[in-house]
């Protein structure tokens, strides 16, 4: 069944997630429309990673339904429509003996399919994407020789190479220097504007991210939408204070 255009890209209905006795996510209702650029903020332990894993099918929801492109998660097979950039610190890939080219090409694994080898057009696509993230000079370098910001761009290129319709980024700016963060959001903005890509960023870095996204939601076991990023930016000290108490202040003040 092909997804209809009007279907939400992601739709969570009354989703609960419980780990042993602890309720990690409570009654999450959330949908992502085409072209949305949504930021989900929340402190550590608020259930951000869990939410992300649920909608990538890495964890099963305790209750409720998750739909991707109009199909329930259990029937969804079109994984190349989704590009995923994981938290970099968790990866620790620096020592792996692979080049930028090899890592980016691995993003095509699902799209090309089992038993098929990469062809000329695939290699060309890899080079295009690497150019887009500005790493053409590093194409055949081992990833161990790259800086944190460059490695981050390699992972974005890997997620983009299969031409996904939805890009999901988990804490994309952790371990990335200030200048690279600017470049990184510029890149996301151009992807949204030129390719109409739907994007979702999960981060605890409230300050920088909320300046770029156009919708903000706060997560603390439950999800609270706060409409446009513009509204959020004006009231965010108050909103965060209400939601999280003092614990978030440290994070919110470094922009």
């Amino acid at each position, binding site marked *: 069944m092909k997804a209809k255009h009007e279907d939400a890209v992601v739709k969570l209905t009354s989703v609960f997630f419980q780990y042993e006795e602890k309720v990690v996510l409570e009654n999450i209702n959330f949908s992502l429309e085409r072209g949305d650029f949504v930021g989900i903020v929340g402190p550590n332990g608020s259930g951000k990673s869990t939410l992300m894993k649920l909608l990538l099918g*890495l964890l099963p929801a305790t209750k409720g339904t998750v739909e991707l492109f109009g199909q329930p998660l259990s029937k969804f097979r079109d*994984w190349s429509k989704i590009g995923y950039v994981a938290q970099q610190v968790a990866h620790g890939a620096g020592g792996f003996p692979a080049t930028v080219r090899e890592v980016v090409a691995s993003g095509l694994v699902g799209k090309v399919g089992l038993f098929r080898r990469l062809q000329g057009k695939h290699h060309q696509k890899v080079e295009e994407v690497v150019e887009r993230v500005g790493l053409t000079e590093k194409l055949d370098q081992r990833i161990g020789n790259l800086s944190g910001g460059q490695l981050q761009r390699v992972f974005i290129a890997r997620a983009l190479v299969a031409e996904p319709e939805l890009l999901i980024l988990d804490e994309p700016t952790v371990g990335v220097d200030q200048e690279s963060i600017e470049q990184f959001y510029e890149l996301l903005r151009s992807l949204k504007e030129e390719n109409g890509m739907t994007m979702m960023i999960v981060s605890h870095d409230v300050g920088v991210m909320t300046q770029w996204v156009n919708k903000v939601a706060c997560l603390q076991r439950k999800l609270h939408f706060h409409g446009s990023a513009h509204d959020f930016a004006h009231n965010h000290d108050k909103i965060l204070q209400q939601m999280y108490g003092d614990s978030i202040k440290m994070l919110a003040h470094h922009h």
Partner: protein
Amino acid sequence: MLADWWQYDFLRYTLFSGILIGLICPILGTFLIVRRLSMMADGLSHVTLSGVAAGMLISKKIALFQAVNPLFFGMLFSVIGSLFIERLRKVYKSYQDLAIPIILSTGLGLFTVLISIAKGFNTDLYSYLFGKIVTVSKEDLYALIGVAAVVLGTVFLIYKELFAVSFDEEFARVSGVARRSINLWFMVLVALTIAASMRIVGVLLISALITLPVAASLQIAGSFRQTILYAIVFAETSVLAGLYFAYLLDWASGGTIVLVAVSILLIVLGVKKIKAALR
């Protein structure tokens, strides 16, 4: 001396077997090492050993199995062991390397018990432990050709999946790669390779041929493909030089091969250090 290698059947079998082992061990080894599973080969080789002992015991006690090569029992045990390891890795998610000592000691325990039941074997167990040139039979070679064909075919067909799963298992999973099946099949291949290589390198030294050439290669390779290629070159050099010297000097073949592989590793490390100092 060199002409002997063509003149005598057993030397030819050894030579061909050596070339095949030198090809498949470093390929599988590269994937094992980058996934931090290099000890897996050790665990499986001990299970293989218990399989060989079981095979010998059965052929000694039951006439029907007399003609069956103990190698096939080694393979059978090794494959069962690999399935068990995958199972254990799932049970102990945060202590994945715990599977290795469990499987290793099980294999060794079973091996010693089987020997004691048999009250010793006529066959030279030493050759299974450390490898011996004269013990390679035509049947052993055929088994190895079969295993090598499957390993090379697999790597050719699912190279990109193997790379993706090795580099980033979570990403591979999100990309829709059947990572469970791939992991399982890969472990079965490692198990078969270990059993099939046993005659030449010996059970206790096979993991050296899987890891040492890759260790040297990692130091100098510029890409993942190069890591595999250099590892093959180092492994083939180790096997060919090792077999030559083992025959010439009447040394144990497995040990000689491993010593050559260690020498290559030391040379690579040394050259790298000198280069760094000169810069």
